[in-house]
Each structure stands twice: as structure tokens, then as C-alpha cells.
């Protein structure tokens, strides 16, 4: 049977890939995709700890994952609306060109 360690390793690798993408990509949409992957890695952690925890019948991990999915959906909707609004204003989604608030 698969151990908890392998699930946690997959989830931390997923988190790091999402972090690298969110930090390096120039396109705002892909930055949002990176954040989405990081949230998914957190969901995988919730479910893995729920399954390997001592009281799985309490369903706490499942509930946490359900609410996390809901929050991630709201975040995606608002984030993409912001990106579309920024695109209308600047005619670009390249984050290096959207720098009018740079100090």
C-alpha cells in the first residue's frame, strides 16, 4: 500500500511547480494557473492526512477540501475577471508591462 510519505511528496512537488510557475511566467493567466495548482496541492494534503489520520470518520478533511475547492473557484472567477479588466485597459496580459504602480 502507498505510504503517506509518497502522497506528501507528490503534493509538495506539485506545490513547488505551481510556485515556480507563479513566480516565473510572464502571462497573468498562467500565474493564476500556478496559484490554482498550489491550492490543489493543499487539497491533496488535506485528503491524505484525513485518510491516514486517526479519526477519519469525523470527515473533517473532506469538509476542509470541499470548502477549499469552493474558495479556489471563487478566487479563479475573480482573478480572471481582474485579468480581463486589466487587458481592456493595458491591451496586454504581460505582467512586466503592467508596471504603472511600480514605486
Amino acid at each position, binding site marked *: 500500500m502507498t505510504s503517506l510519505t509518497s*502522497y*506528501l511528496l507528490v503534493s509538495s512537488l506539485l506545490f513547488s511547480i505551481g510556485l515556480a*510557475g507563479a513566480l516565473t511566467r510572464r502571462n497573468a493567466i498562467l500565474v493564476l494557473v500556478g496559484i490554482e495548482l498550489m491550492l490543489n496541492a493543499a487539497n491533496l494534503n488535506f485528503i491524505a492526512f*484525513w485518510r491516514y489520520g486517526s479519526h477519519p470518520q469525523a470527515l473533517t478533511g473532506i469538509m476542509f477540501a470541499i470548502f477549499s475547492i469552493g474558495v*479556489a473557484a471563487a478566487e479563479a472567477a475573480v482573478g480572471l475577471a481582474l485579468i480581463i479588466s486589466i*487587458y481592456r485597459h493595458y491591451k496586454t496580459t504581460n505582467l512586466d508591462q503592467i508596471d504603472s504602480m511600480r514605486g
Partner: protein
Amino acid sequence: MTFSFFILGVLTILGAAAALTLRNLVHCVLALMLAFVGLAGLFLQLDAQFIGFAQILVYIGAVAILVVFAILLTRGTEITSQSIVSPSWVISGIVAAAVFGVLAWTIYSSVASRHPLPAQPEATVKQIGDALMSRFALPLEVIGLLLTAALVGAVTIAMRDKQEMK
């Protein structure tokens, strides 16, 4: 480590890596969907059927389609000739690799990860519904409010101004 876990894990990681390295944005979303399918499979392996299917419905059915819409509305399909990564990508890569290194080291040295697998818990949809309606009723209401506010906010932000219409 079972064979199915290996396949699903590799699928998830490869999909995620492709989603953030490919040049064409539409290909990126397709790779992202692959990563979401792999994650849903991992959830099913962990006996969380409801979360696995909710993952497919919400992420592949809604979030990925939303990202495709955003790409089309911002003309992201035009492939740019300039670099796809920002100039400081080396530092960001080092930061991400360091984060993974610290996490992996912590996971390996932790006692909690050597737990034996408990017996398969019962997490039927009926039990989840009962819990959502009794113990988690207030969080459910709050998430409903949050989703409504996010919906209204997203429409308001993305709506065209009156002057722009002219």
C-alpha cells in the same frame, strides 16, 4: 507504492510541469486538465470519492473552461516571440527548488509520515450531506455567501464601462 499511484502521480506532475512550461496557452490549459484528472484519480485512491468527482466537475468542468475563456478574450492564442519567463526566473526557480527541498526533507524526517494506513473509513455522499447539513451548516452558508459575492464581484469587475462602449 502501488503501480496505479505511480501512474497517477507521474500524470499529475507531468501535467502540472507542462501547464507551466509550454509556450502556447491553449496547450497549457490542456496540460492543466491532465494534472486535474491525475489529482482526481489520487483522491479516488484515497477513498474520497466525493472529492474526486467534485474535483472533475469543478476544476475540469468550470475552472479550466473559465481559463480558456480568459485566454480567448485576452487574445492569448497569439504566440509571442519574446521570452515566456520573466527576467528574474533564475532566482524564482531557486526559491521554488528550495521550498521543495525543505518540504521533502521535513516529510522524510517527520514521524507523522510513518503512520500505518487505518482501515477504510466510510465517507459516503449521504454521510457528507448529513455533516454539511448539521455540523458544518454555518460554514456551508458562509461559502454560499462568498460564492455569491465572488460572482457579483467578477461580473462587476469584468463589465465594460459606459464610456468604453461608445
